[in-house]
């Protein structure tokens, strides 16, 4: 028996019964396995989060208590946690906006404009993907030193702004889209900038959402660059900052560190939740493409 159509005034129990009947019990095994998998994935987070809520001494005690004291310890402690948090956010946000802008503009040029050696340029750009980041670290160090940007957040932002992978992703998306919108606008007398800004960019919502997640996460988690470029706490970002928390609190106060880790994960969740709505919508939308 399948789910039946209920009258609009059905009671809650009727609705629940109907929903219950609609479950395909043959899938029970699959569901069980999936739920176990999901719990395994979540367990470290749950442990991290719940431990961070306990006083240091109770770090390993059961049953857990839910006293959010550690967040205060963190805020008032010797290491400026909140400014570091803000730095991390600034670096990730500026990098994300910058990468989205530069890569969508580059993608527009590579997929819509005809200019000499455009393919050659594009392949050169892709070559950049093959260079390991560690390799450019020392040249980058000298460039930043020359520019006087050492120990500022700009030494973390600028190297991330040109992102070959992002250009590649956006170009592939644009190539899969019809050119006729842009051509229409071109015939309508619009400038390249107007076409990009008013016609192309508004259509790039889904890939921009996906790109934002990737870039924001990568930037947020970046450890290597701040480790090398940043010395003072004023410009420090979270990954290196948490490491120094470890130095000053140590394993005895694990819960303080885990409180920091919990807080550090939070923005990624927010970004992901916001952006994934876009992605799901766009995937659902492609089926009814006109």
């Amino acid at each position: 028996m399948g789910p039946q159509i209920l009258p609009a005034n059905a009671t809650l129990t009727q609705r629940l019964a109907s929903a219950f009947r609609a479950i395909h019990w043959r899938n029970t095994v699959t569901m069980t396995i999936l739920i176990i998998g999901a719990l395994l994935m979540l367990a470290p987070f749950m442990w991290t989060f719940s431990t961070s809520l306990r006083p240091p001494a109770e770090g390993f005690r059961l049953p857990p208590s839910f006293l959010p004291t550690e967040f205060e310890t963190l805020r008032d402690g010797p290491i400026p946690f909140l400014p570091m948090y803000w730095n991390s956010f600034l670096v990730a946000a500026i990098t994300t906006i910058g990468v989205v802008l530069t890569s969508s503009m580059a993608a527009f040029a590579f997929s819509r404009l005809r200019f000499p050696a455009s393919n050659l340029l594009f392949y050169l750009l892709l070559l950049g993907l093959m260079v390991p980041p560690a390799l450019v670290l020392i040249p980058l160090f000298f460039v930043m030193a020359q520019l006087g940007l050492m120990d500022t957040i700009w030494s973390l932002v600028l190297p991330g702004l040109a992102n070959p992978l992002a250009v590649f992703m956006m170009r592939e998306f644009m190539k899969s889209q019809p050119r006729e919108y842009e051509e229409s606008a071109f015939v309508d007398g619009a400038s390249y900038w107007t076409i990009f800004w008013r016609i192309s960019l508004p259509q790039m919502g889904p890939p921009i959402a996906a790109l934002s997640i990737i870039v924001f996460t990568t930037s947020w988690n970046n450890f290597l660059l701040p480790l090398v470029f940043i010395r003072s706490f004023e410009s420090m970002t979270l990954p290196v900052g948490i490491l120094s928390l470890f130095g000053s609190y140590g394993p005895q106060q694990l819960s303080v560190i885990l409180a920091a880790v919990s807080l550090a994960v939070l923005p990624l969740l927010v970004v992901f939740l916001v952006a994934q709505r876009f992605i799901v919508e766009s995937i659902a939308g492609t089926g009814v493409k006109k």
Partner: protein
Amino acid sequence: MSTLQLENVRKSFGKAEVIHGVDLEVDDGEFVVFVGPSGCGKSTMLRMIAGLETVSSGQLKIDGRVVNEMTPGKRGIAMVFQSYSLYPNMTVRQNMEFGLQQAKTPKPEIKRLVDEAATILKLHPVIDKRPGQLSGGQSQRVAIGRAIVRDPGIFLFDEPLSNLDAELRVHMRVELKSLHQRLGRTMIYVTHDQVEAMTMADRIVVFNDGVIEQVGTPLELYNAPANLFVAGFIGSPKINLLNATRKSGDTLQVPGGKLTFPQLDRLSEAGELVVGIRPEHVVVADAGDADISGKVTLAEQLGGETFLYVEIDGLENAMIARAPGQIRVQSGETVGLRLPSDRRYLFDPKSGRCLNRLTFD
């Protein structure tokens, strides 16, 4: 108010040349239709005129000025695409405003022009909707509206009706034609539907494989096709073609009978020829009167007229005859067909050229 001249225009994509030297003059206010089979270069030609493709060689002139290097926005043209390509993130009104904004038209003027176009095209009920919420016919209207608000010298249409259903297509055909009369602007219209071409065009340009086969008014093309290709392309159902062998004097042997052509020697000396006659000119006749005879394989009764598909000498569907009214014939029956001598075309099979000229009143 615009004329258009093409002088030996060529287009290559990489090494492949797809337009092989096209010459054409379009007068101010003319409705010119480009027809031809798929892949013959109609869209490429139109896109060159629009400025969306570069011209590989030759000259493209609008109002006497060479515009080869001019960007589309400066050419005084508007284009309606097959897919409409309405900007998906803008409402109908914003779609129509867009071009005017680019031309820096003052705001009150933009509003007036858009409202005017919306009235002509009956778009007011949907003016605040987005393209995703429109029907095919409405989208088509918006695309046309977007073109007319800009008041271009030349309108370019690339198969604008091919995404519509048959009924709406006929309707929009009439609307477009009356729009042309009302605006008096030069229009160039691409289609591969020869009925659209015949009914809408002042002049038709028949393309084939990147060259122009013939240019003329619809009736010129129908009455005096320059060659086999044009004869086959204009007219529906297609013209009947019979392979003919010269016999003695003025007589030609064709499948199913003999035909005499007065003064055949003056037309051609070739031994092999092709005779063409349109289905509507074939006359069903008694055995005594008939030029050829064949077996009916299918009789389509449309009420007002009857189409007979006739097998001749074992050649299936060698000939289609359109007879007025309702003729009672069974398939399998033998019929006599008269091919009136003033309605027969003679073609040279090698060059494809039409050798004679018929007169229609």
